[in-house]
């Protein structure tokens, strides 16, 4: 399982979570990115194709995006991706999205908890095993 976290509010919230004594499964790995605005449908689908069971994308709240509208874009992209996941037989709930406004650990904790709840109720993602082979990067869409 991976958390794709924007480097601004979400990653800071995750750092603060450590200081505030939060704890979660070490199996959840973290990929910091510059802005969730760059997340595309294809890039999210590839993560599932690589065998990840769940992906939580953390962006910044409305009005808190460092680049203004990255979080808004990502929200739309996540919606789109969920639809495609459903069509491909992967429960849309395997893909989570939350927006962090204040870099507080509580906010991150809440986001992770609600995602795990959603993930559980969605059942396992049923990762496409055939897609586990390395997806060549460098190709276009």
């Amino acid at each position, binding site marked *: 399982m991976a958390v794709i976290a924007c480097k601004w509010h979400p990653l800071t919230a995750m*750092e603060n979570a450590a200081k505030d004594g939060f704890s979660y499964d070490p199996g959840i790995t973290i990929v910091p*990115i*510059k802005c969730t*605005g760059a997340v*595309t449908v294809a890039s999210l689908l*590839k993560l599932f194709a*690589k065998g990840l069971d769940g992906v939580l994308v953390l962006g910044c709240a409305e009005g808190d995006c460092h680049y*203004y509208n990255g979080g808004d*874009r990502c929200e739309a992209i996540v919606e789109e991706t969920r639809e495609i996941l459903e069509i491909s037989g992967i429960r849309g709930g395997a893909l989570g999205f939350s927006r962090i406004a204040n870099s507080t650990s509580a906010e991150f904790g809440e986001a992770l908890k609600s995602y795990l709840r959603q993930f559980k109720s969605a059942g396992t993602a049923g990762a496409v095993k055939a897609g586990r082979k390395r997806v060549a990067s460098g190709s276009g869409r």
Partner: protein
Amino acid sequence: MARKASCGKGSRSGKAGKAGRSTLGVILCECGRELGRLLDLERLARGIKADPRVALVVRGPYPCSRSEIEKLGGALAKRKLDRVVVAGCSERLFGRLFRTELAGFGIDPSLVDFADIKNLSSLIHKGGRAAVTGKALGLVRAMVAGLAAAARAETVETEIKPVCAIIGGGITGVTAAVALAARGAKAILVERRDAVGGLVRDLNVVYPSYLTSGEYVEARRRELEASGVEVITGTYPVAVKGHVGDFEIELANGAKISAGTIIVATGASPLVPEGLFGYGDNSRVVSQMDLEATLSRGEDPGRAIVMIQCAGSRNEPRPYCSRVCCTASIVNTIFIKQKYPDAKITVLSRGFAEYAGDLDKARQMGVEILRYSPARPPVVRERTVEVYDEISEMEARIPFDLVVLAVPLVPSESTRELAQMLKMPTDSFGFVMEPHLKIRPEEAVPRGIFVAGCAHWPSNITESIVQAYSAASRAFDLLKAGKLTRASTAAVIDRDHCRGCGLCAEACRHGAIDLAVAEDGLKRAEVVAIACTGCGVCVSVCPSGAATLTAASSDRAGEMIDALTEA
């Protein structure tokens, strides 16, 4: 995210290990004894070293100290390494330190990355040393994979034309122009009306000086004249092209201004309270601006005056406080009381804003103040106002000659037009928004554009002046530098795949996409590198996959995920 695009023209170093030899080093921080206590450093170091992309792992208890970073940097430089992953603490805390110090050893700051194995692994998991060590190794591997695929960020540079165009000749615009001229910068002021002064021209007296607005504006106009700033009145921008350093503003009169920076000072207008408290039906109900006009013409406003505060604000659809109306009402009551001591003035307020000046003075002069609740607003009849006073808890019927509605400021037409033209985001009321209130005050989202005064919120004269100085000094920074240089993290748009739909140009809030007609007659989008922040919004809206981030713009998530899923 998972794609790498060709980085366009220009020099960049190739991928690490391309020539068969890795040039990537890892600094492993032990954080004193902290990390050793939480995870198995030996295993971690071995795991990192096992990665063929890593040429060297150096360790130390405090790499964030000067003496140690010099030692470790020296070791990296000796092996001619050009990229470094710092595995330790948060990038937020130590990013600048490591990047600056390592630059001294020939390592490009854009090729220094951070794996936070402390906060994101060691401190947060209670799963025991083995699990924590495994997670930390994963994080470092991911960063190593990402950085190995990274390209050095190109440096982009643009000249800043030594002119600041100030749109709006109100007090804010005039102040900014004079401030820039005083620093020796060239400013051009564009005012829609036939003379400068803006909204203040329509007032009677100004707070806190109690000068008539005529006197005040004339004083400021003389200051402007003396400053030598070029002033263009009676026209306004109809189109703006370009980006930071090189804007071209087309005016309604056909003239063109070429400027390096823009200050937007287009201000606000008072709301016309159509339909509120009988305005429009009852000729004795006027707005505050009507009263200002009556008073400045020297006409008698009548002897029984009722002022209703927050008329059209602090409730739907304008829940904001307009900030200037309390003071304006108080100043008017004092003015009227001084001129007509027998006037009976009642102010119906919802509680005065703290910044309402001279409230006590008005009270002492006999101005009566009642407090109404938004749930029971005053009712204006033919010649009386009925109101429930929350303080005395009594109904009152107040006869009047004149009812004055303290109306809020709303964004001026010019502010709305310009916000659209310059793609400046606005709040839901139409005021221009700063990208960050505290970190980037007086800046608009697109680079090189600054906002001051009522264009971004109702503000009184004093506040507007302070904002004008602030915007002027921000603009001056750019003008004085004469050029803007930055490490580019710009996106690229593949000309062959772009179909010119313009979605990216619409989504980009930084004015970094130029939609131009190419030689072949087709529209194509092009990224203006200097204005691009590399946020990637264009990548996610592009329906044809033409827009991509480059390896220099931290588009490395694909490699990172690969490394994580391999591990």
